């Protein structure tokens, strides 16, 4: 059996040093080794987006990332968004807009939406939908998810444009 690898990384602001088997995905590390079960396993093949986390601020599918490759990286999961008991604006907007039904895709949707705001490229509902296309919602809450993202963009001073006719 190949050896475990010692990896140092930061998860939700906390530095950790872990021994990791090379075939462990970042998703399984979070859920099974660290009990951070907010990040969901949907398809486990990078197709649904339920496992979306931020790695050094960039959104990625944690199911396709090997944990041993995260040396020195900063990982943010849904558990790391709220600060001092205060929900992140995107979490609050999802509640306000009822942007979920069963909730299974929600952590991934929220992380993806947080990154979308940071990327700063979405200025129309069409653009929000396109840039959220890596997150599937089996319940079909898409209109309300877009509403939640629009709210957070607007609160940040972004004026939404009408899509071209």
């Amino acid at each position: 059996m190949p050896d475990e690898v010692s990896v140092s990384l930061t998860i939700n602001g906390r530095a950790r040093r872990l021994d990791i088997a090379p075939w462990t995905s970042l998703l399984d590390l979070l859920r099974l080794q660290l009990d951070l079960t907010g990040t969901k396993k949907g398809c486990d093949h990078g197709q649904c987006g339920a496992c979306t986390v931020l790695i050094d601020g960039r959104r990625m599918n944690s199911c396709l990332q090997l944990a041993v490759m995260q040396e020195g990286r900063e990982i943010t999961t849904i558990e790391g968004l709220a600060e001092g008991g205060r929900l992140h604006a995107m979490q609050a907007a999802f509640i306000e807009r009822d942007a979920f039904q069963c909730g299974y895709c929600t952590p991934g949707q929220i992380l993806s939406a947080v990154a979308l705001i940071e990327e700063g490229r979405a200025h129309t509902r069409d653009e929000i939908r396109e840039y959220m296309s890596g997150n599937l919602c089996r319940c079909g809450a898409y209109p309300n998810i877009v509403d939640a993202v629009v709210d957070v963009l607007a609160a940040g001073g972004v004026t939404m444009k009408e899509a071209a006719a």
Partner: protein
Amino acid sequence: MNRFSYTRAASLDEAVRALAADAAAKIVAGGTNLVDLMKYNVERPARLIDVTRITGLDRIEESDGGLRIGALVPNTNVAYDARVEERYPLLASAILAGATPQLRNAATTGGNLNQRTRCYYFYDTETPCNKREPGTGCPAVSGVNRIHAILGASEHCIATHPSDMCVALAALEATVHVAGPGGARAIPMAEYHRLPGDRPEIDTTLKRDEIVTAVALPAEAQAFRTNYTYLKLRDRLSYAFALVSVAVGLEMDGGSIRRARIALGGVAHKPWRRTDAEERLAGKAADRQAFAAAADLLLEGAKGYEHNEFKIDLARRAIVRALGQAAAGTPQSQVDKRIR
């Protein structure tokens, strides 16, 4: 996933040596395709060599009047690089037509070149597949073949190459730079991917012990920065592989075409070009008659199977439409998917 050893290479030399030393080793960077294939047991490497910490391969640099994109540059960073957007917007557009923001953030330039087909039989280890297990047969030929090739296929394999980025690179006549134990060499994009023939298990001309280091975009391809398009047709508007895609770059002289480059995706084992179709457009007025003649040449010899016959007509129409978009200077939007 199989059990494997992990090596983090600190330099290109170290990665090349590690790869040469272990015939069952594979290079990993973004992991978006390889890790997925490992989960399906399609790939079972004994060792992964992580190249993501090698310095110097993660930059886009000026080179001979063009740009040299390091193999580790993520797809997102290529698509939104100001120099790429300005000089090679066809490449930026093609990248944004593919995958999702999450995948484009992880996927690298080198990995995109080396991704494997999405043929369902290749992914399903319960079925035979000449690409996965040479000599076992190709169930796609007489099976479900809606997404399969209409050009350049063989009786042994009718898989397509799934990349959007590579279709643009073919049209832009990029060069792939690789390094191996014998040193560095450059491979023209047209020769990088190969047709299946009787060796469908070999996707590219990259040797087993070589590593992609960069993709170079030639200065001349900047001439297509105004008149270009990447038109991708698929079963849903986002996050689906192309049934047919067309990358076009035109250099216009008023209403006539001075120089044309056309590459097709979703139709063959490699981005499909026909230089005679491109040459036929040179000096011609940019009209439907000329576009249709080019489409006829590009699709010469096209052969459909039970479920993908539709691709031949779809490709013909897509080529004509894409040439029209490029000539008019109105490239396909990758956000608003309406085809104009």
